[in-house]
């Protein structure tokens, strides 16, 4: 197979980043409204969004600011809201070539979001840093600018546009997990089981007190561990 050039990986990343950018733009407005309620200026909120690139984490942070809670509480809240990124980054570490330069690891680590993790995992073979940077180049401005504008003027889009754009992010998740499921029955079964258990978790009132971030972690660890135990992957499976 011919190696693609860095520039073409970058542009492919930009293309895959476009739906992320639009979805972020729509979702970030509501984050901006939360930031405004916490008393932040547009620039402060935009900076926070640019530096964190996190939806649940952002909300959690702005809630802490609104309550003027302690700095320790801020650190703990952010840790809980974003802990799933520990798992995603660990998984992504296996998608990087072992000899990749250290500064690429530091840069890629800046923006491991649900959506960007998804598209990075979906590229064939090892992840080229240029692809990730292409995605970042459109996704990060979408998030930061959306938050900034959300503080400044509330929601610019009508509810029907926000509704449509926010579902686009889930459409991406579907586009990422379905093609491998077609080739691998274990993955297909895992997706069905994951969705069923996630639905059950959301429906049982007993679990209402658990934050959605923690629910995602618990389900991911339990289901993936069970799958790894019963269906360990063959040595060459993820080398493709």
């Amino acid at each position: 197979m011919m190696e693609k050039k860095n520039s073409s990986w970058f542009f492919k990343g930009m293309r895959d980043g476009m739906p992320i950018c639009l979805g972020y733009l729509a979702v970030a407005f509501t984050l901006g409204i939360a930031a405004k309620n916490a008393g932040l200026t547009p620039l402060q909120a935009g900076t926070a969004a640019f530096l964190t690139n996190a939806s649940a984490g952002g909300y959690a942070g702005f809630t802490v600011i609104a309550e003027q809670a302690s700095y320790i509480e801020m650190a703990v809240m952010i840790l809980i809201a974003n802990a799933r990124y520990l798992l995603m980054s660990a998984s992504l570490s296996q998608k990087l070539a072992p000899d990749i330069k250290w500064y690429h690891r530091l840069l890629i680590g800046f923006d491991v979001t649900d959506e960007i993790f998804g598209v990075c995992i979906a590229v064939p073979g090892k992840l080229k840093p240029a692809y990730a940077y292409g995605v970042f180049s459109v996704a990060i401005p979408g998030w930061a600018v959306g938050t900034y504008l959300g503080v400044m003027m509330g929601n610019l889009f009508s509810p029907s546009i926000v509704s449509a754009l926010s579902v686009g992010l889930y459409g991406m998740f579907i586009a990422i997990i379905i093609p491998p499921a077609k080739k691998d029955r274990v993955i297909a079964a895992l997706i069905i089981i994951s969705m069923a258990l996630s639905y059950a978790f959301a429906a049982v009132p007993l679990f209402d007190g658990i934050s959605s971030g923690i629910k995602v972690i618990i389900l991911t660890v339990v289901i993936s561990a069970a799958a790894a135990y019963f269906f360990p992957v063959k040595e060459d499976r993820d080398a493709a």
Partner: protein
Amino acid sequence: MQHNVYIYIAIMAVVTYLIRVLPLTLIRGEITNRFLRSFLYYVPYVTLAVMTFPAILHATNSIWSGLAALVVGVVLAWLGQSLLTVAVAACVVVYVLELLIV
């Protein structure tokens, strides 16, 4: 005691960054343990599936438009359509359906 908003933002940024960058920098090279390799191999599919459903039903103004987007997305992805096509189709389905039913 009055807290400084910039210190708050700095804590948000630093904690978030550490969570993301530590696994990427500490786990160098390929993990050889078969169980761990398999676990990390399955994580993306499980976690994205868990985050998609049932959340997609509540991301929209109507459960039915969310469900329609899910079905259309799965069918198009199964037929091998690109990421962008699937994402845009999901948006269009929701937008059109909500014009009709909400």
